Structures are given as C-alpha cells and as structure tokens.
C-alpha cells in the first residue's frame, strides 16, 4: 500500500456469514463488493479504502444477508442483500455518499430488537469471530485477568452464586452451587466440560454463540476451571456443526498463540488447556452421564445418579458440565459484577435467556430477552405476529422435553417456574410457534417419533413405553383411534415419566400431556369423527375437485405426481380417489380454489 492509500479513510463493510448469512449468499456478497470496488478503481481514484469484516449470526437471519457499512462514526445496516446489489451500494453509498434507501433495514427490523436485551448476543454479530483481538477490544479476557490477579477460587464461586445464574442447558440448576460441589469434591484432577451437543431439533442458540463469539465460551471455561481447580477442559460439540467446530479450533489456536491458553497463564501459575470432542449424532449424549461415556469413547448411555458428575465424572474424576450459553455468560458476570446481573430478570430466574424463535412467526431468528418477559411480547412484539395473519394456536417450548402453550396463556412470564406451572419448560431455548394449520396430535407424534428413535434402550419404560405411545398416536392420526385411547395415553405417560432412568424418558411424555391438556378436543375429533381439524393428517383427508369452480386449466393435472387427475381442457377435472396419494400438490397449485380438502 502506498502512502496516499494509507492516508485514505477506512470504510468497513461488515457481512453476516452465520448459517443464515451463508445460506443467503454471504460469501458471494463479499466477493461482489470486492469486485465492484476493483471495477470502479479502474476509472476513478477512490478517496477511501474498503475493509471487510465477517461476523456471526446477528439474530435476524430471515433478513440475511445483513450488511453494515461503517464510515467513521456512522453505521448503516442493509437487509436482504444479494450479490447483484453490491455494485449499487458501492456506487451510490460508498462513492456518492447516498445510502440505497430501498435496502435499508425497516421498522420491523427495529421492532424485532426493541424488547430484546442483548448481553451475550451484543458481541455476536459485531465482532469478527475469527480474530481474538476483536474480542479483546470489547473487554474480552479481562474477566480471567481480573480473577487471576485479585480473586481466590472461593470468591469466584461466591460471585457466581450471588449472580443467581442457573444452567441454560435445560434443568436450570444454579451454576455456583454446581461449581462449589465440584470444588469441594476430593481429588487433584478435575475437569470442565462444555456441553455443545445442542440436541433439541429446532434450536440453534449454542451454535450461534460458538460461531459468533467463541472466545466468550473459552473464557467462561477458564473461569470455571480456576474456580473448581481444574486444568483441562473438553468441548463436546455436534459433528453436524462443522462451521462452529472450525471457529472454535481457530479460536483455541489464537488463544494458545497469545498465551491465553496453556501453562502459567498471565504469570499466575494457573494452567488451563482445552480439547474438542465431536459428538456423533445421538440426542441422548446431551445428557451429562451419557456425554461422559461418549467422550470416553463408548456408546453414550446414561447411568443412574448419584454419584453426580461433580463427584464422579469424566474418567471417574470430579467434573463440571455446563452448557455453552451458561459458560458464555460467565465473563460478562465477572466483568460487570453479580449485582448487575441479578438486577436483570425475576426473583428466581436471573439474567437474560437466548431463544431460537422459529415456526409461524413473521420475524424468525435468535433473540435474547430478560427473564420474566411475557410470551405474548416475544411472539407479537419481537416476532411480529403470525405469518399471513393466521390464527395463533400454540407455542412449543423446551423441544422434545417440553410442551405446547395455548393462546389463553400468552400472558405467562418466561421464567423457569412459570413455564413449569403451565406444563412446559424453558429447556435449552427452542421456541416454535404454531398456527391454526398445525395439528396438535401430529406435533405430539412428531416429538414421540424423535424420542422413540433417540431412546438409548437401556431402560424398559423408555424403550418400550415411547414405542407404545407412538403406536397409539400413529393410529389416532391414521383414523384408527379407539375410544379409551386418550386414557391409555395418560396412563402410559405417567408410567414412562416416573420409571425412566434419565431425563430423556422422564420428559418424553410432556409433548403428549400438554397437548392433551390444552387441545383434548382435537384428539377427540380425530378418534370419534376421523377428521383432522387442521387438515394435516393425510389419512383423514380426501381431495376432490369442485365442478362449479374448476376452469379446466389443467394445472392440477400437470402437478399431480400420481397421475390421478383426468379431464379435458376447459372442462371440469376429476380426481381418482383410488390413485390419489394425498400429496396435496393439486390443492397448492390450483389458482381458483377449486380443489376441496375434507
């Protein structure tokens, strides 16, 4: 770079390359910016130099690719950027100084953020996750330095206890209490394990934190290690998250290089190192004792507790297992103090919680809200309400261990106790919104298919119980339900809940119990009338064409994969019920609403 280049002002183009950003073409967008700049350079002498920053998920993935243009003190955010728009932004904004209005973020973007409180996610999406200096610049690794220079382990534990933080992996166990138990457990060798298995199928909080701010997790583990007296940590992470694994490896390498991981850190005498273990695709391995077995190279089967991992964990040594989000909170608590943290949230649930808001809301994405916010605020203010202004039906929280909460309970505050009272859980943070076109029996069956397939088979109530439950749900959705099936479900659910060995079996009935509680009549309609009110259960539907409305355009005939539709052009068409495989293609295709589904 010559002298004059160096004196030019710097413009930063910040591009989301989180999962959503990549899927929407984040990398191509960066290339398009580079190409546009290079093309303009040929003819004009630009008065700035352009720098590119890749950032992780910023929350509002539905608006990807999100691009910030930072010019001195002003920062402008664009949404929905495709490679072919880059040239216009370069020309009109970077060169002529006029932001391209039609691609700027709009009111709904601001509404999405208004009720959020971002602590963890603040740095996710603004700092470059592939550069340790970016984390250091925003105060990163200050917490561990502070601790090593001025706090004894007992002080750290007291601080974490005072903050009131509870585990974000699902059970909500107080983190400080867990650390204390491990500290007090006899033994010289202890381990810290970060649970990044994120098995809930509909959740991506942990993935986004690791991809967007990996150093916060590493720093959290270091603090935990110092507090309990450990020198080695493991991150157990799903192999399905290759980008997160790469980020984490890079972060670890940089931390090593800087002397933030390794021996005698910051001259304190404290040493800590990290290893990564890849999960191999088994939901039950998120359960802590199964996770330990898996790290040890065995089939990941849970065992009975006690002894708890804090007493007898990895390789038989005292082990603290914490979730990614829990650990990521720790540096922020130490930096800002327990009093600050405990001022956020409710009496028994402190701080913020990250949720993956998905399903039928307009604004899907990753959100961080203070504990105690009402469900309705999340769905209507942050989520912007239901897509297509359909009717809200329920919100599913807690994944396969959780439940469905109906419209009349949208005033429920989001905290551990309140969600428990209405038959669900906070869980790890999945929040899937359902509308009137979702069938609740189908949803219950969906979760049972999952838990049944993922049951490790060690104990009979879970292995056989989930199978029986699934069989009953299956026959109800097929129109073969019988009187008494609901009572049978209830009885079996109680049995599986009380007799299973681990959390998977103990919570597997929850999706059934909560839908039975709030949507019992939907079950009854399936069983008695052999009808699916939401029109989801295939076997209970018949497709036919309404003669009077059919224009004979033939679109359905072309769409039908089974060749079940016949008819001459411009004359009413007909569906052969024998051949119809009930795929619904004709229903979706017909522009004249002439296909009837009953």
């Amino acid at each position: 770079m010559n002298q004059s280049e160096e004196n030019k002002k710097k413009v930063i183009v910040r591009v989301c390359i989180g999962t959503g950003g990549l899927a929407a073409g984040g990398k191509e967008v960066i290339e398009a910016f580079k190409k546009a700049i290079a093309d303009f350079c040929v003819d004009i002498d630009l008065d700035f130099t352009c720098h590119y920053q890749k950032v992780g998920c910023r929350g509002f993935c539905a608006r990807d690719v999100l691009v910030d243009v930072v010019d001195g003190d002003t920062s402008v955010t664009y949404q929905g950027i495709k490679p072919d728009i880059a040239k216009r932004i370069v020309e009109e904004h970077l060169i002529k100084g006029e932001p391209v209005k039609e691609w700027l973020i709009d009111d709904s973007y601001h509404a999405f953020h208004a009720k959020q409180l971002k602590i963890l996610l603040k740095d996710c999406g603004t700092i470059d996750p592939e550069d340790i200096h970016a984390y250091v610049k925003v105060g990163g690794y200050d917490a561990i330095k502070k601790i090593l220079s001025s706090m004894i382990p007992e002080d750290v534990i007291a601080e974490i206890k005072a903050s009131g933080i509870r585990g974000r992996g699902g059970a909500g166990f107080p983190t400080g209490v867990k650390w204390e138990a491990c500290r007090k457990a006899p033994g010289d060798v202890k381990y810290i394990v970060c649970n990044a298995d994120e098995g809930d199928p509909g959740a991506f909080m942990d993935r986004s934190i690791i991809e967007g701010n990996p150093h916060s997790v590493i720093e959290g583990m270091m603090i935990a290690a110092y507090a309990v007296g450990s020198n080695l940590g493991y991150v157990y992470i799903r192999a399905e998250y290759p980008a997160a694994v790469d980020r984490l490896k890079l972060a670890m390498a940089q931390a090593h290089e800087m002397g933030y991981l390794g021996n005698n850190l910051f001259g304190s005498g404290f040493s800590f190192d990290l290893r990564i273990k890849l999960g191999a695709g088994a939901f039950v391995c998120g359960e802590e004792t199964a996770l330990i077995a898996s790290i040890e190279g065995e089939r990941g089967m849970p065992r009975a507790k006690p002894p708890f991992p804090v007493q007898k964990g990895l390789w038989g040594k005292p082990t603290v297992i914490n979730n990614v989000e829990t650990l990521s909170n720790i540096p922020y608590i130490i930096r800002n103090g327990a009093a600050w943290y405990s001022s956020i949230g409710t009496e028994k649930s402190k701080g913020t919680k990250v949720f993956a808001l998905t399903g039928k809301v307009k604004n899907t994405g990753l959100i961080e809200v203070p504990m105690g916010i009402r469900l309705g605020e999340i769905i209507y203010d942050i989520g912007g309400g239901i897509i297509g202004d359909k009717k809200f039906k329920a919100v599913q929280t807690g994944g396969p261990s959780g439940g469905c909460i109906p419209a009349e309970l949208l005033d429920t505050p989001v905290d551990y106790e309140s969600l428990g009272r209405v038959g669900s859980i906070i869980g790890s943070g999945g929040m899937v919104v359902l509308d009137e076109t979702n069938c609740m029996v189908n949803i219950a069956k969906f979760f049972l298919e999952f838990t049944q397939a993922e049951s490790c088979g060690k104990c009979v109530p879970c292995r056989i119980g989930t199978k029986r439950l699934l069989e009953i749900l299956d026959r109800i959705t097929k129109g073969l339900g019988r009187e008494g099936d609901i009572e049978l479900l209830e009885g079996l659910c109680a049995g599986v809940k009380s007799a299973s060995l681990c959390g998977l079996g103990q919570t597997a009935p929850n999706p059934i119990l909560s839908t039975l509680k709030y949507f019992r009549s939907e079950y009854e309609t399936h069983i008695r009338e052999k009808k699916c009110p939401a029109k989801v259960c295939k076997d209970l539907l018949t497709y036919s064409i309404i003669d009077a409305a059919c224009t004979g355009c033939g679109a359905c005939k072309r769409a039908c994969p089974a060749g079940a539709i016949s008819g001459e052009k411009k004359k009413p068409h007909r569906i052969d019920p024998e051949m119809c495989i009930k795929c619904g293609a004709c229903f979706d295709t017909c522009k004249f609403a002439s296909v009837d589904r009953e």
Partner: protein
Amino acid sequence: MSEILDDIIARYREKDGNVIFLLQETQEALGYIPEEAVGYFSKKLEIPSSRFFGVVTFYSQFHLKPRGKNIISVCCGTACHVKGGSKIADRVLRDLALSAEGETTEDGKFTFEIVRCVGACSIAPVVLVNNRAYAEMSADGTSKILREIKKKESDESK
C-alpha cells in the same frame, strides 16, 4: 486401504485411544465404515469387532454402506417440520425413486437423508445439498435443484 488405516491407528494411539475418534477418522477418509476396516482394526488393536459395531450402530453419524456422490439432506427438525419439511422429503423420495430415507440411487449419484435440525431453524424449511444449506425451500424448489444436478451429472459423463 491398509495404509490409510495404519495411519489412523497411529494417530489413534497418540490420542487417548478413543474408538469414536478412530471411526470418525475412518469415515472422513473413506466416506463410510467398510466392514473390512473394522476387521482390520479389530485384529491390529485386539479389540473385539462387536465393540466397534456397538459404537457404529449407536451413533447416527456412522454409515456402514458407501454413500452417493451427492448427498441430499432434508431437515425434519421441529422448525422445519411445522413448515412442511416432510412434504419436501416425500418429493425427494419420489424424484429419486427411492423407497426410504438413507437409501442411495442405483447409479450411486444420490443419497437421500433426513436430518433433525442443522441449526438453521430461522430459515426453515432447510435442505442441505452436499452440505450447502438452502433456505426457505419448497418441494418444487428442491425438485429444481435435483434436476440441475442430474443435468450436470449427465453432461459430465458425456
């Protein structure tokens, strides 16, 4: 093949002797876990092959059969399910003329899999084609991608 396997064994010995690591490396190198590989490990390391198979069958990541050249994974996690993931899965089955998830087409060009959440739930429903995520997919959109790959494949073989 034995060279590759010997190399993996050497690295396995350096690590803490972890069977899952050994199998993950094998699959990474060969695309699946051939039975001969298990036999080879079993003999060299004096570990009964039943232990390997126990681990292989427990974890869904491992495949005992070779997979196709193109891997089509349709997400049927919760967020994708409620937005019609299974309709897409049905369509892929039909387009590829397969009868179940996990199968590979006869010409070895495609394997179809159902995955349960790839952590991109806010852009559901998601389809992965050779690990690249496609956002907000429809059955028609997926058919179109399949047609494009098929065309590319047949152009290449010409």
